[in-house]
């Protein structure tokens, strides 16, 4: 994984010192809150309902054990003992004190981490496939490019005061596990006819009140031109993006307004001026960064693992966990294990300091000391020998981290909602807890199979409800919390926005409504058909009929 050298260290140290001085000027009154706001936002510090919130970047979702222990230490020493992992490979602390934030940033700097550009109208933390480097379908490791983008975008002189936030995601594989089409820029690696790797460049995706999937503006960009092409896109956006209305300021609105072809032409025109210049990646620099992501020293293991087969036969709970939470690895004899942060009835994405320490220890005991963060707000151990899976599972179970629900209906993405967020219309967390409890029965949850369910507390769509198979959106009706349901969203390479099924449900009805939807699916599905396929085959009609049937008390 990437290691800072003296120059990266110097940079982060300067940044912490600068922010320490800015906080001092805010505390002394020299800076007004208005003037301080963009400065704190560019260092990941939000003002929420009850307190400040600090968002720390986990670049491309890769952590070392040492870094995870530091995150645990920060949760313990500066917060209330836990942290919240988000959909964009960040961790959020909900209760830091303003005066202590520079100290937190200094501690992060010690382990080569920071909170730079995790909020504000700038280029945010670049996200990548959480299975980078270990997925069997990968062409090249997206983290190499995400790191290159991280360096280029950090305190970019021209693009630090954009019309609105700007998010980039990279995948090195055809199966999209990074929701690239849901980003301002999505980059999907593939090869051209000659076998040269390059990117499909997609622009103008985003959720919020206007969910739009990014459109392709260039089908193949050779990797050496990555930064000059990004610079061209950003330059067009910085000049032409709307600044008069924050709801119309994202690049998706610009692309929609001028049309994809015209937008692509503007980018190409700008790019012709700056390509082949200082931003082109010298092969040596790419190789230098790529070397950091070289594979760990795998052992030659057999693909067959009788020990694992035996454990699966002997223990049904373990078998269920393997079925949902273990994924194939590109190396024979190894597996990828998802650690669900979605215990039934728990707060999605939260981990306690003790749990973080435990995961760090386990990553060293059974893997190579590396941990990944997924878009689904779960942790992933990327390199576990199959023979160790059972021991790992037993240890995870003792920490309450062995919930067998990855990709299942209770693997809910939920935003903080009205419990923390000052923009919320409704609570998300208690609804997620209630729904997940309905599916706590292992047999039932397995029977339902793969199904995504996301809950946002308002139209900003932080929990990606638009791209969930079942999306739930908190709305406010005359001061009462209501929940609107969308069906049919998809977040992978076939990304699609879900459609509203009908009138919203209140807090008491919403969990029943979800059960009704699941019941309709179970009645209608053909053998082994996942929810989304059934929905696409039968359409919203049968769901609507049952949900709004007269005998359903609404």
């Amino acid at each position, binding site marked *: *994984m990437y*290691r800072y*050298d*003296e*120059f*990266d260290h*110097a*940079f982060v140290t*300067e*940044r912490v*010192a*600068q922010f320490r*001085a*800015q906080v001092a000027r805010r505390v002394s009154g020299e800076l007004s809150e208005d*003037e301080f706001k*963009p*400065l704190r936002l560019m260092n990941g510090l939000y003002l929420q309902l009850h307190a400040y919130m600090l968002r720390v970047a986990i670049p491309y979702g890769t952590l*070392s*054990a*040492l870094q995870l222990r530091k995150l645990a230490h920060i949760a313990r020493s500066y917060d209330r003992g836990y942290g919240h992992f988000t959909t964009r490979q960040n961790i959020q602390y909900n209760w830091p004190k303003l005066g202590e934030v520079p100290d937190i940033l200094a501690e992060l700097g010690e382990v080569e981490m920071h909170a730079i550009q995790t909020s504000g*109208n700038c280029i945010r933390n670049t996200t990548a496939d959480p299975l980078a480097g270990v997925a069997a379908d990968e062409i090249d490791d997206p983290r190499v490019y995400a790191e290159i983008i991280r*360096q*280029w975008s*950090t*305190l*970019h*002189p*021209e*693009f*630090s*005061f*954009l019309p609105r936030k700007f998010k980039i995601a990279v995948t090195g594989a055809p199966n999209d596990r990074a929701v690239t089409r849901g980003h301002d820029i999505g980059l999907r690696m593939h090869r051209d006819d000659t076998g040269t790797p390059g990117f499909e460049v997609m622009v103008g995706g985003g959720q919020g009140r206007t969910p739009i999937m990014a459109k392709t503006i260039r089908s193949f960009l050779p990797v050496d031109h990555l930064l000059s092409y990004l610079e061209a896109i950003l*330059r067009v956006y*910085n*000049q032409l993006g709307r*600044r008069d209305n924050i709801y119309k300021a994202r690049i998706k609105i610009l692309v929609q307004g001028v049309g994809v072809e015209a937008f692509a032409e503007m980018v190409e025109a700008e790019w012709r*001026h700056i390509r082949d210049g*200082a*931003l082109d990646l010298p092969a*040596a*620099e790419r190789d*230098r*960064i790529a*070397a*950091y*992501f*070289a*594979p*760990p*020293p795998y052992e030659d293991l057999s693909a067959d693992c009788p020990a694992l087969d035996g454990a699966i036969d002997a223990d049904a709970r373990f078998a269920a966990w393997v079925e949902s939470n273990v994924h194939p690895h590109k190396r024979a004899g190894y597996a990828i294990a998802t650690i669900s942060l979605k215990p039934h009835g728990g707060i999605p994405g939260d981990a306690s300091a003790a749990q973080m320490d435990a995961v760090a220890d386990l990553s060293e005991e059974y893997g*190579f*000391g*590396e941990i990944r963060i997924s878009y689904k707000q779960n942790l992933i151990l990327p390199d576990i020998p199959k023979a160790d899976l059972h021991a790992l599972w037993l240890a995870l179970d003792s920490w309450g981290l062995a919930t067998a629900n990855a990709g299942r209906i209770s693997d809910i993405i939920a935003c903080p909602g009205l419990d923390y967020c000052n923009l919320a219309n409704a609570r998300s967390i208690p609804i997620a807890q209630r729904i997940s409890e309905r599916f706590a029965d292992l047999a039932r949850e397995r029977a339902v199979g793969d199904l995504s369910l996301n809950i946002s507390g308002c139209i900003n769509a932080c929990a990606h409800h638009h791209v969930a198979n079942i999306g739930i959106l908190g709305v406010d009706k005359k001061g009462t919390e209501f929940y609107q349901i969308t069906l049919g969203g998809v977040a992978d390479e076939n990304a699609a926005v879900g459609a509203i099924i009908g009138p919203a449900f209140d807090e008491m009805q919403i969990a029943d409504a979800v059960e009704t939807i699941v019941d309709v699916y179970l009645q209608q599905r053909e053998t082994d058909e996942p929810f989304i396929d059934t929905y696409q085959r039968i359409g919203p009609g049968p769901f609507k009929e049952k949900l709004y049937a007269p005998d359903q008390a609404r």
Partner: protein
Amino acid sequence: MPLIKHGKLVEDTWHDTDDFADVQALAALGPVIVNLAVWRQHRDAILALGGTLGLRLAPGQTPDIVAADLHRFSLIALEFARFTDGRAYSQARLLRQRHGFKGELRAVGEVLRDQLTFMLRCGFDSFSVDTKRQAESILDAVAEFAHWYQPALDGAATIPALRRRAVDRGEAAAPAGCAANWAY
């Protein structure tokens, strides 16, 4: 208003105005900065005056539209309507890099301390600020950072360049490798 130029607090010799009786009145003002509308309307008359000229561009007025006349200006002022409005950063880089503008590039409007380094790196070399106290506080902002990732117009050596030098001098080792080597 206090002016910072090339890192020092200096006297502003320019007259920046939207407000004058007629074009002839400009002649009496000395070096003068006009806005784009005035320039377009009175271009020939202003040129006939023969004085030292500056042009002020509002956010959204891309330098491309006056490219052919840029050599006539000794100064271009770019407006920050609000400090959060970052369009002038792109205008500045286009002026310097695309159009080769060599004259004074001045930031006007909401010019605050914490944006100064970004401005310098985009090619601004003078800054019109509200108060003298602010001007002094701004000057020490410049010293906060010595390390940058991107190539830009302040000529600062980038982190990648510093790295290459260190490797060439034999001071830095080749990259450490994978996560397995992670150790402090």
